[in-house]
């Protein structure tokens, strides 16, 4: 545990694994620490048809290959752990996991990714798997001929609504604004589907039921009026937010809570870099995450060379 790594990468999505591949191939002693399952959001992707050089793949296969590559170059990967402490203020950075083990490194790459937003309302956690779902492809069939509510107004919400409409008898999209963020193509597809209804300017305030979901409480944001809607399920697609909770007190963020980096993926702290969906940028794709991770690893390598 007293060994000092050249690079510790926090996160094992495409950005973190790419950084791991490049850093370990550059003979840097590299450790990836990951809180959840390896892969990040890309494992949610059933088909990837636009990754250059690969005709078609899926998120699981792509990540497994990246993981294998990183390990073959000598990168150590530890997953499914809790990062309980981060100290980046000294020359040697320290990362504590599971409130006990501390890992040290000359540089840290933050590839913390994003996480699906949750509603954080009563009933959401209790009814997970008993009516509350975050994946139409996974769970749609359990709602055959039932009524469901979809929360959200982006591409995912409307695309998944159209997909769910194949199973359900009635679907109500509840969205907090009076317009959708989704591309017109998805909006049109949803609006043209006779099973899909819309409640705009509204937010869910609670999910209720017994063994499974029976109804939701909806607040009209214009009037403040709360109404109830009987439903068998709630599908939540309200986007992603950067995983910055553990670094937000010392890393510079933009107004959207994303890590600010320069062209070399440097953060405001010496020897600390960031990459992937947790950084401030416009386009979030596997390819951009891979590029960020590559640049961060090369910058970290450069930084270490200048230290010596």
């Amino acid at each position, binding site marked *: 545990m007293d060994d000092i790594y050249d690079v510790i990468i926090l996160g094992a999505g495409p950005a973190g694994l790419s950084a791991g591949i490049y850093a370990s191939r550059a003979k840097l002693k590299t450790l990836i620490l990951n809180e959840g399952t390896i892969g990040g959001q890309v494992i949610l992707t059933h088909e990837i048809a636009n990754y250059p050089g690969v005709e078609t793949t899926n998120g699981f296969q792509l990540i497994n290959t990246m993981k294998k590559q990183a390990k073959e170059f000598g990168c150590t990967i530890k997953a499914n752990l809790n990062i309980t402490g981060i100290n980046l203020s000294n020359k040697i950075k320290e990362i504590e996991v599971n409130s006990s083990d501390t890992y040290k490194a000359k540089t840290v790459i933050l590839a913390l990714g994003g996480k699906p937003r949750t509603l954080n309302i009563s009933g959401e956690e209790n009814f997970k798997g008993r009516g509350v779902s975050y994946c139409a492809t*996974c769970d749609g069939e359990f709602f055959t001929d039932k009524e469901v509510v979809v929360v959200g107004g982006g591409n995912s919400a409307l695309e998944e609504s159209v997909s769910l409409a194949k199973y359900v008898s009635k679907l109500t999209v509840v969205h907090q604004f009076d317009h959708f963020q989704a591309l017109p193509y998805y909006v049109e597809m949803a609006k043209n589907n006779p099973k899909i209804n819309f409640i705009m300017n509204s937010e869910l305030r609670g999910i209720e039921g017994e063994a499974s979901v029976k109804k939701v409480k909806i607040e009209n944001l214009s009037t403040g009026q709360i109404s109830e809607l009987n439903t068998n399920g709630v599908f939540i697609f309200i986007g992603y937010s950067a995983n910055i909770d553990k670094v937000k007190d010392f890393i510079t963020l933009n107004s959207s809570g994303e890590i600010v980096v320069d062209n070399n993926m440097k953060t405001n702290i010496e020897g600390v870099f960031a990459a992937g969906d947790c950084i401030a940028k416009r386009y979030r794709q596997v390819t951009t995450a891979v590029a960020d991770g590559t640049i961060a690893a090369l910058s970290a390598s450069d930084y270490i060379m200048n230290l010596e």
Partner: protein
Amino acid sequence: MLMTNLKHVESVDEHKKIMEENENVMICCGRMGPMCLPVYDIMEELEDKYKNVKFYDMDFDGPDAHVIKNAPECAGFMGLPFTMYYKNGKVVKATTSIQDMDQVTSILDEYFEKSEYQHSKVAD
């Protein structure tokens, strides 16, 4: 066929044999989807640490998956994967939808003998 490194349960007979031959068993019945993959990943990681537990997956769309899908403990489940924990062939716990490492290990620790694995000692 599930593309995991776990051992697969492929038939009712195999399921029965596993129940007869093992004291503590965890079976995750799912697909290669975003709610299931994290659970498989956790199980693969725990295989070395919970030597007293046998870990298996089962294809939710396989012809014999009814052995789990139709179990009374799964009544009302509406989220993949369906994960079953058996002691001496009896279901002691069943969960629906995605679970994290803490949720899985707390069930293993509660229903099966606590292994030497400490949450703070996560190996490669």
